[in-house]
């Protein structure tokens, strides 16, 4: 049977290890290797990349011989919304300011839940925004604007 289906965990983990290991090995070739006596910047990463590739190869080979447990449910919606809301917050926080970026972060991320409701999330967004402005801005002096540069501040 197909190893990707039969032992997906071993196969993909090994694949990632080989990918990262070989990538790091290729990049390391641009650095100075040095000698054991005087290790250059490439010395340690080269050792590690080779080691990682070996581990990856064993893992992939193992997926051909040994069956494993399936990957299981993936919370795609949760993953996408959590990551998207975080990225969005980072992109607009300076421009729009906390008063817009925070409620958006709360509502977009909250919509990942199966129990999402507009009413409670809006209330939570207001509460969290006020709390963060008081604690982080006024209290701890984090340099973030309440209303951002897009509004002429």
């Amino acid at each position, binding site marked *: 049977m197909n190893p990707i289906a039969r032992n997906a*965990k071993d196969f993909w983990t090994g694949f990632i290890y080989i990918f990262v290991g070989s990538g790091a090995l290729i990049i390391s070739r641009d650095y100075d290797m040095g000698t054991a*006596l005087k*290790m250059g910047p490439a010395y340690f990463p080269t050792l590690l990349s080779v080691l*990682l590739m070996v581990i990856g190869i064993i893992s992939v080979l193992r997926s051909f011989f040994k069956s494993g447990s399936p990957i299981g449910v993936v*919370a795609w919606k949760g993953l996408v919304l959590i990551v998207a809301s975080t990225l969005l917050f980072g992109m607009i*926080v300076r421009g729009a300011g906390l008063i817009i970026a925070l409620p958006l972060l709360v509502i977009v991320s909250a919509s990942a839940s199966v129990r999402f409701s507009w009413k409670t999330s809006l209330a939570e967004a207001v509460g*969290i925004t006020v709390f963060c402005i008081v604690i*982080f801005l006024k209290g701890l002096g984090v*340099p973030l604007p309440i209303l951002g540069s897009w509004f002429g501040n």
Partner: protein
Amino acid sequence: MELLANLGLGLSTSLTPLNLLYCLIGVFLGTLIGVLPGLGPTATIAMLLPVTFTLPPVSALIMLAGIYYGSQYGGSTTSILVNVPGEAASVVTALDGYQMARQGRAGVALTTAAVGSFFAGTVATIILALFAPPLAAVALKFGPAEFFSLMVLGLLAAIVLARGSLLHAAGMVVLGLLLGLVGTDVNSGAQRFTFGILRLADGIGFVVVAMGMFGLAEITRNLENEGDRSTVVKKVANLMPTREDWKRMIGPILRGTAIGSALGILPGSGSILGSFAAYAIEKKVSKNSKEFGKGAIEGVAAPESANNAGAQTSFIPMLTLGIPSNPVMALMIGAMIIQGIQPGPSVITEQPKLFWGIIVSMWFGNLFLVILNLPMIGMWVRIVSVPYQLLFPAILVFCSIGVFSLNNTEFDIYVMAFFAVLGYLFVKLDCEPAPMLLAFILGPMMEEYMRRALLLSRGDPMVFITRPISATLLALGALAIIAASLPAMHKKREEAFRE
């Protein structure tokens, strides 16, 4: 007698109103995040790290330490009342704790957990005070080869103690070591793996990685099965165990404390494994082994003692060697560096107030925890009932603002999001993130020690095997790996984590 003088110094340091206050704040926050499922000590301490800049070093570390062992305490409350472990180390407590709660014995279960934790905490504090100084004295004689081998041993132990496949854990460690090298090479000034991104020249922030992999990835994982949440046991009456209960909990508490203290020192998931191992052993030795899983008081007493003891003894490698045994300790080291203290074996002699202050504060912290957790249990019950769909957006907000405030740059928010994806991916592939984070911290240190050791030996790699202490450390590591991969042990290891 020197010990008494030292404890006196610690007492005078930790008994100042300011430090007592920070200890209380620490254990209070710790209990809070322990009670709340989906928010662990790693993410919390990472979030609070920027706040500690402004505090005096002793107060900052006392508070952060309190958060860590406080969270182990609070985790049991959620396990018992909701059947959802508040912390990874409280997973096994839920097995019997929740059953006790369903039989109307929630109060007794909570008291058992508190008594066990307090006893374990007290013993672990004494162990810390007794064993840390001689260990630091030995470590002062270490050369670069010994430190390198010690880190190899630490990482090998982290592999053995990780959940799931040994091979995957080994890969995670190497991956972590590589990630730790991103940035400017201290020796040559060369930019490594920065892809021309200027912001990466100082390397990837550990806190950013920790929040992504432990904060955000954990939220995503929790969103997988939101549906099945057991009913919350809201009524907690009669905290007092009966005579029979007391009798039955003594043995498990003693054994749990011993197992937890020993395993806590080990790197990786030492304190988590401690609670699993204590439960498994108790199930074997107990006269009431048939009751396990149906509300046996031993099944609460043993793991709760073990995880609290382990949480405290895990400070030993950090305080004596300057080497973190888990991500939380790595953050503590970060806090020390921020405060201008060089972590390592010299901390005891150069910063005795700090060292003994932290140790003695742990005992007070444990005392606070008993008060916070038993008479004030009603408050925590209400907090447990906060629905997760309200909780996780708030966690996300705190992580985002916290990460931003580290260097006042949005770039760190993007990096955190990247590690959230990576963290979730690895969770799905059964690769535990803790060993990777540990390796991430140790990566640059290991490279530096390896370079110095090879420089001293004129490039001869045999130096790691010809120096006796270094050779012993490496042999121990090799032994641990060989033992864990033997078929018989392999099965045992899987069992210990599966319970």
